[in-house]
């Protein structure tokens, strides 16, 4: 029995990278194959499930006329801007919430109130106050992301062991220094993981954001395609969103394992 086989059933045991990626690839290939079979067998209505060939053809068309690239560019820009903004605001506030009880009192209940509200319901107010330009779209993504992210950051900051904080005090760290030199680095691995997860949330808001007078973008194009029953375009764009997300996920994982060699995680 090869050793990697015995590793599979072991808790926390790493498996060979080759095996990992083979299995991971299979989880994409198998659904793709089922898709291909289902659409080519005619068992499922083409209208709901276009064939891979149709989607590929559509991809070529849109790539050639350049629309694909501009849509990707705009959506990536909006998501990135909204998400970055949310992170910039949520990280300090979340860390304060997880560290000071008074900050918790100030932010937590109100956040808990607002975060349940459907972001789309804010569209009219957003249009009223910031108009219908790019700011509005970025703000939409910000709203959709911030309230969730801030709670996750607070949850991470709360898990920093009190012992580590205490040690820093006895070494002369001021409260401010404990915050910046202990709570922040100790939260970092959890923080990066949660940023990674929340980036996905930000992307799911691209459609809502592009409801607001978008002239282009992945979400806009999906809605337009829906209007005209262009299922192949819809599938193409959804897949592109997935792939963009997958890529950003992998990049964030790489960065986090490279920059935090001290963290105890199992690597890929």
């Amino acid at each position, binding site marked *: 029995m090869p050793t990697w086989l015995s590793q599979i059933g072991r808790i926390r045991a790493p498996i060979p990278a080759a095996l990992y990626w083979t299995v991971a690839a299979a989880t994409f290939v198998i659904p793709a194959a089922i898709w291909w079979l289902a659409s080519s067998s005619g068992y499922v209505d083409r209208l709901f499930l276009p064939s891979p060939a149709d989607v590929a053809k559509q991809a070529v068309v849109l790539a050639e006329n350049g629309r694909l690239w501009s849509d990707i560019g705009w959506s990536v820009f909006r998501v990135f801007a909204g998400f970055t903004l949310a992170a910039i605001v949520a990280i300090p506030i979340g860390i304060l919430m997880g560290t000071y009880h008074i900050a918790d009192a100030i932010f937590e209940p109100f956040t808990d109130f607002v975060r349940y509200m459907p972001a789309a319901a804010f569209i009219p107010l957003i249009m009223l106050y910031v108009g219908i330009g790019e700011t509005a779209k970025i703000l939409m993504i910000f709203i959709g992301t911030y309230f969730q992210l801030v709670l996750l950051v607070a949850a991470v900051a709360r898990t920093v062991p009190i012992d580590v904080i205490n*040690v820093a*005090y*006895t*070494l*002369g760290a001021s409260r401010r220094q404990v915050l910046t*030199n202990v709570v922040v*680095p*100790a939260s970092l691995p959890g923080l990066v993981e949660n940023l990674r997860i929340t980036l996905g949330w930000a992307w799911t808001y691209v459609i809502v954001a592009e409801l607001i007078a978008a002239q282009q973008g992945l979400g806009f194009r999906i809605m337009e395609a829906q209007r005209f029953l262009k299922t192949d375009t819809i599938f193409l764009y959804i897949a592109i969103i997935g792939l963009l997300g997958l890529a950003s996920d992998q990049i964030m994982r790489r960065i986090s394992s490279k920059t935090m*060699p*001290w963290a105890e995680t199992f690597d890929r």
Partner: protein
Amino acid sequence: MNLSARANATSTESVAKLSVRDISRRFETRGKIVEALKGVSFDVPSGGFYSIIGHSGCGKSTLLNIVAGLDQATSGVVAVDGVVRRSPGPDRGMVFQSYTLFPWLSVIENVAFGMRMGGMGKKERREAAQHYVELVKLSAFVDAYPKELSGGMRQRVALARALANKPAVLLMDEPFGALDAETREQMQELLLNVRNKEFMTVLFITHDIEEAILLSETIGIMAARPGRVAHEFKIELPYPRDAATKVSDAFVQNKRRLIEVFKSI
């Protein structure tokens, strides 16, 4: 904080470096009350070395935490140089019972942490830290992360980190517990040396009676339920001491007497 300090400090005529005054600490959890400390008082003069021994669970760590300002006494005060201290500060450095290193910092960065907080420059503090890393015999591991160290190595890093910060009062909770006899002896000598040079005041918890005698001027023997200092024991051995002191007659006599007292509690 200064106001009440004066009032409380009056009982110590010549102001002690560290005064512990009538400290009580009660834990209440799920209805049950544990009286961890009750009316603990003692003084440690400037440059003094005070050890605490006592059975497991008698309240030693709780006491040290309160002195460090990390836990709040139910009643009583702690004063350094006659000034009441309720929160932690660099004047009271501490080595914890469970060596708590910063996992994201390498050995040298851990040791240099206090200096960094104090605003010392990078090069300067690295040099100073290097010195302490050498003292605890970990030169080969300057850049290792805590997860790559053995238990005893971590404990030594924690020791180096506390020493490097040169606190006025050094609080140590069984700092040599995980060390083999030889390394332990080296660390004891190191502590004696550093204390001499830096004129630190030390409050020390240990389970090792020989260690207590070798290092201390005074030993407080704690009794449990409720935790209190049942007896103070003066060690009449001249400084400087070293490992050789342990085989002297005076040492053996002190040990015999201490064991007697300890058993009688």
